[in-house]
C-alpha cells in the first residue's frame, strides 16, 4: 500500500443556490480543487463522486459520467458512490484505496447534492430513504424522529438535558460565523434553540441540520508524487469504514453508534494514535444529539459525558478538542453527498494553517467522521501534516 496525500481542495459556498444547478456546483468545486493542486487536469486518471439522491432530487442518475463529461475529464473512469449521508466519506475512501493500491497516481474525489429544487417535504421524504423504508419510514418515522428516539433514550439513560443538545447548535453557529463557506453565519443562543419549533420532541428546528445545495472536491496523489506538486501535502494516515443495522430499532444500544466506534478504533490503530492526539475534528452532527454521541464514540469523552462537555464549552474552537470548526452540518449546511468531502476540505485547511479566523492553533492531526442514516454506515479518516 502506498501512502496517500491530499494535494488540492475546493468547495462551493454551502446554502441555497437558486442560480446554480448540479453541474455548475460540482464543476466549481472540482476546478478549485484541481487548480489548488497545481494540476492541469490531464494528470488525473480516476474519479469518485459522493452523491446520495440525485435521481430523486433532480431526476438525474449516472452522475459520474455527467461530471467527467462536464469537467472535460473523459475518458477517465469515474464512479458514483452512495452511502446515504456518508456518500462523501465513502467516496473519499474509494479514492484513497485507488491511490494506495498503486492503480492510480492522481484521483479526484467530489461530493455534491442539489437539494433546493424540491420543497422541504419532498426532500425530507427522499432523505428518509437513508433509514429502513419498509419498517421505519412507512410506519410514520421521519429522520428527525429517528434521532429523537435516540435523544430521548440518551436523556433517560444519562440524565442529559435539552440544553446540552442546544449547546451543540450554539457552538456550531459560533464556528459557522467564522466560515465564509457556511450556510448560516449568524450566532445564536441557547434560548433561541429552546424556543424554536418542535420537529420531533425533544428535537427542535435548531437541533437539525438544514437542506443545502453544495459541492466539495479533493485531489489525492501518492505521497511521493504529491511532494513534487504541492508544498503542503496533507497525508491521509487512516481510512476506515464500518456498517451496522439499517434500522435503529434493530440495535442493542441506541445511545452509541457501534459503526462509529469500530471505524474509529480501526482508524486510530492504522494511524498509530489515540483520540488524545487529535487536534481538530469534523463530526457528523446531522442533529445535535448526533454530535454528542460522536464525541463519545470517537473517544473524546466517556459515554454519557458528551452533552455536559458540550455545555461546558470543552468542544469549542481552541478548547480541549475543537469540534466542527466549519460549523458542522448544523451551521455550515448539509448537502448530503458533499458533506463527507467538505469535512476533508476543512481538515486540510486547518492542517495547512489556512482556516483564517477559525484556525485551530498548532493543528497537526485531524479527523473526519461521516455517518450514513442513523448509523448504518460510519466512515472515519485521520489526517496529518507531512
Amino acid at each position, binding site marked *: 500500500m502506498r501512502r496517500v496525500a491530499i494535494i488540492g481542495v475546493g468547495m462551493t459556498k454551502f446554502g441555497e443556490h437558486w442560480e446554480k444547478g448540479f453541474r455548475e456546483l460540482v464543476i466549481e468545486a472540482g476546478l478549485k480543487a484541481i487548480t489548488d493542486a497545481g494540476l492541469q487536469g490531464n494528470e488525473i486518471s480516476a474519479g469518485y463522486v459522493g452523491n446520495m439522491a440525485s435521481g430523486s432530487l433532480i431526476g438525474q442518475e449516472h452522475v459520474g459520467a455527467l461530471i467527467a463529461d462536464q469537467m472535460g475529464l473523459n475518458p477517465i473512469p469515474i464512479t458514483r458512490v452512495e452511502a446515504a449521508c456518508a456518500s462523501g466519506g465513502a467516496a473519499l475512501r474509494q479514492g484513497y484505496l485507488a491511490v494506495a493500491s498503486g492503480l492510480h497516481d492522481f484521483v479526484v474525489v467530489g461530493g455534491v447534492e442539489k437539494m433546493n429544487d424540491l420543497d422541504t*417535504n419532498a426532500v*425530507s*421524504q427522499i432523505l*428518509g*430513504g437513508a433509514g429502513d*423504508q*419498509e*419498517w*421505519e*419510514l*412507512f*410506519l*410514520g*418515522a*421521519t429522520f*428527525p*424522529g429517528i434521532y*429523537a*428516539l*435516540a*435523544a*430521548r*433514550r440518551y436523556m*433517560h439513560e444519562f440524565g442529559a438535558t435539552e440544553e446540552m443538545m442546544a449547546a451543540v447548535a450554539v457552538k456550531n453557529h459560533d464556528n459557522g460565523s467564522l466560515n465564509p463557506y457556511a450556510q448560516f453565519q449568524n450566532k445564536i443562543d441557547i434560548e433561541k434553540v429552546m424556543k424554536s*419549533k*418542535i*420537529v*420531533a*420532541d*425533544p*428535537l427542535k428546528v435548531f437541533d437539525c441540520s438544514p437542506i443545502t445545495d453544495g459541492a466539495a472536491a479533493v485531489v489525492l496523489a501518492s505521497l511521493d508524487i504529491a511532494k513534487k506538486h504541492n508544498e503542503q501535502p496533507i497525508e491521509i494516515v487512516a481510512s476506515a469504514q464500518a456498517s451496522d443495522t439499517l*434500522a*435503529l*430499532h*434493530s440495535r442493542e444500544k*441506541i445511545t452509541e453508534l457501534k459503526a462509529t466506534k469500530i471505524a474509529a478504533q480501526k482508524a486510530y490503530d492504522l494511524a498509530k494514535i489515540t483520540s488524545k492526539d487529535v487536534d481538530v475534528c469534523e463530526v457528523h452532527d446531522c442533529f445535535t444529539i448526533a454530535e454528542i454521541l460522536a464525541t463519545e464514540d470517537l473517544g473524546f469523552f466517556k459515554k454519557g459525558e458528551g452533552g455536559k462537555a458540550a455545555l461546558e464549552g470543552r468542544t469549542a474552537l481552541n478548547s480541549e478538542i475543537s469540534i466542527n470548526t466549519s460549523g458542522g452540518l448544523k451551521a455550515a449546511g448539509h448537502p448530503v453527498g458533499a458533506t463527507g468531502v467538505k469535512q476533508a476540505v476543512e481538515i486540510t485547511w486547518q492542517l495547512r494553517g489556512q482556516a483564517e479566523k477559525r484556525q485551530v492553533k498548532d493543528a497537526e492531526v485531524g479527523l473526519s467522521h461521516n455517518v450514513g442514516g442513523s448509523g448504518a454506515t460510519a466512515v472515519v479518516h485521520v489526517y496529518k501534516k507531512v
Partner: protein
Amino acid sequence: MKESIPLTWRRIPERYRLKGSQCETCSTTFFPPRIICPKCRRKGKMKEFHFAGKGKVFTFTEIHSPASGFENQVPYLFAIIELDEGAKLSAQIVDARKEDVKIGDKVEAVFRKIQSDDPEGLIHYGFKFRLVK
C-alpha cells in the same frame, strides 16, 4: 412515502400478524423476519415465529413535522417497542398523549390503518401500539 401495491401485499403477514423469525441455533427472535441469522450465519436455521404483540416502550418521540401520509395525525407519538419475546420494532403509539407515556410502560399491538393512497386508492393496514392500563 407512498408504497406500491405489490410491496404492501407482500408484507401482509408481517404487518397484520407480526410474523417474524427465530434462529433455532441461538434462539434469537427477529422482527421483521430475517433470512439469515446475523449471529450464526451459515450455522443458523431460521423458522417462522409469531410475536404476541406485548411489550414495553424502549424510547419514544412526538413527531410534529410528519412523514408523508401522516399529515392529518400531527402531532403523533412514535416509538421503539421492545417486544416480550426479545425483538424491537418501530411503531406509532395511539390513544395516548405525550404526557401519558414513559419509557418502560407496557404496551400491546393493535390493528390499525397506517395510511391510505388517494381517496380511490389502497388503504395500508398494520400494527400500532397502545398503553396497557
